[in-house]
């Protein structure tokens, strides 16, 4: 079903399982995993490693006071709903659960901003490490112009598909581009392509015309 998917590497999955991954990257992994059973299974095995390591720790006794305080509170506890639980979307919604905190009413109702003829973008949030979390929308057949990044760029395809020098990517595909990787994603002709993109530093467009744009684009990352 998903043998052709592009996956996060083992290092990223391990950090995700251990809880040491920046949340913006974890968001990408989680989005990918909604489409990928094999990464889900790997994650479950990785979680078992953490569980076994925890079992082998020397227990540090909790005070009787902590226990009785908690037991006394049990009847008064009420569950807080997560953002996705609080806003259940249509059952047929294709918006990944972990993104529903940012996308309440479908992709089309987001405040998209025009980046170029071919691309619109909307910033969802920033991570505490400064990484920018955004959605990119490329029109059918449109090109995201050649660009490089100052930091790594994590991308997961949410809708549609695109191709670049290294191949064709479709829904659920996950990829990381390093600072040195230049690439020119082109959306397929049949439909627009929407991606989740996390960038650790400002994107730099390297095409001839878009070089002129760079000062402005960079400013929006300030």
């Amino acid at each position, binding site marked *: 079903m998903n043998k052709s998917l592009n996956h996060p590497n083992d290092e990223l999955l391990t950090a995700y399982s*251990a809880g040491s991954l920046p949340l913006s990257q974890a968001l990408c992994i989680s989005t990918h995993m909604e489409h990928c059973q094999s990464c889900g299974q790997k994650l479950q095995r990785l979680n*078992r490693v953490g569980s076994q390591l925890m079992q082998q720790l020397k227990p*540090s006794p909790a005070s009787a006071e902590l*226990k009785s305080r908690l037991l006394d509170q049990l009847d008064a506890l009420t569950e807080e709903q997560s953002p996705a639980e609080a806003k259940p979307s249509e059952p047929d919604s294709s918006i990944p659960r972990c993104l529903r905190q940012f996308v309440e009413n479908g992709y089309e109702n987001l405040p998209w901003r025009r980046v170029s003829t071919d691309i619109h973008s909307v910033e969802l949030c920033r991570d505490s490490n400064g990484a920018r979390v955004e959605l990119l929308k490329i029109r059918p057949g449109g090109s995201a112009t050649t660009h490089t990044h100052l930091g790594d760029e994590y991308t997961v395809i949410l809708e549609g598909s695109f191709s670049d020098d290294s191949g064709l990517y479709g829904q659920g595909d996950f990829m990381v581009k390093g600072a040195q990787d230049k690439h020119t994603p082109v959306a397929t002709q049949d439909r627009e392509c929407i991606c989740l993109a996390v960038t650790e530093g400002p994107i730099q467009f390297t095409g001839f015309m878009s070089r002129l744009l760079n000062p402005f684009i960079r400013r929006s990352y300030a």
Partner: protein
Amino acid sequence: MPGMTKQLNSGEKLAQMSQCITEVAENRDKASFARLFDHYAPLIRAYSLAREPAANLVADELVQEVMTRVWLKAAKYNPRLANLNTWIFTLARNCRIDYLRRNSRYATEIDPTDIFNDMEDEGPGPFQLVQQSRVEENIRAGLKQLPREQSEILTKVYLEGKSHQQASDELKLPLGTVKSRVRLALKKLEVLVPR
């Protein structure tokens, strides 16, 4: 239970605790919850202290958070997806992520609740693991046989919550060495099987 002081092995203990979580889920049984607390609270504290030694208040806060979720989410826990120990580990990890986020110098609005919900029924696709217990046993036995240098790194990564880069700085080892030790260790535990 008075008179039941026999030392249980880890499998028996897990079976006993699994009974308790069922009692909590189905009957809201506080005595069973107290037994879960007795077993898991010291481990949760140890997990917290592994990252922040001597931070006893932080450790107690983590116990409070995790055990609160155990009480509230017991009915959502699905033993087919993960055994109870693994569920508790993921709850502790998730609570720690949330604690760090709330106390971070630079705030972020990313809410981790819907990101790390892989253990609940309505989470992203119920992945069922074949031969659960065999995997479990491989990992348990494998951990004991790992060379010290490899288990040391796994401890840094999983319990102390260090990134590979931080582990490399602390152990004064090249980043590549840290990465390959983690990889080797996970390979021996048969966690990273080829697709």
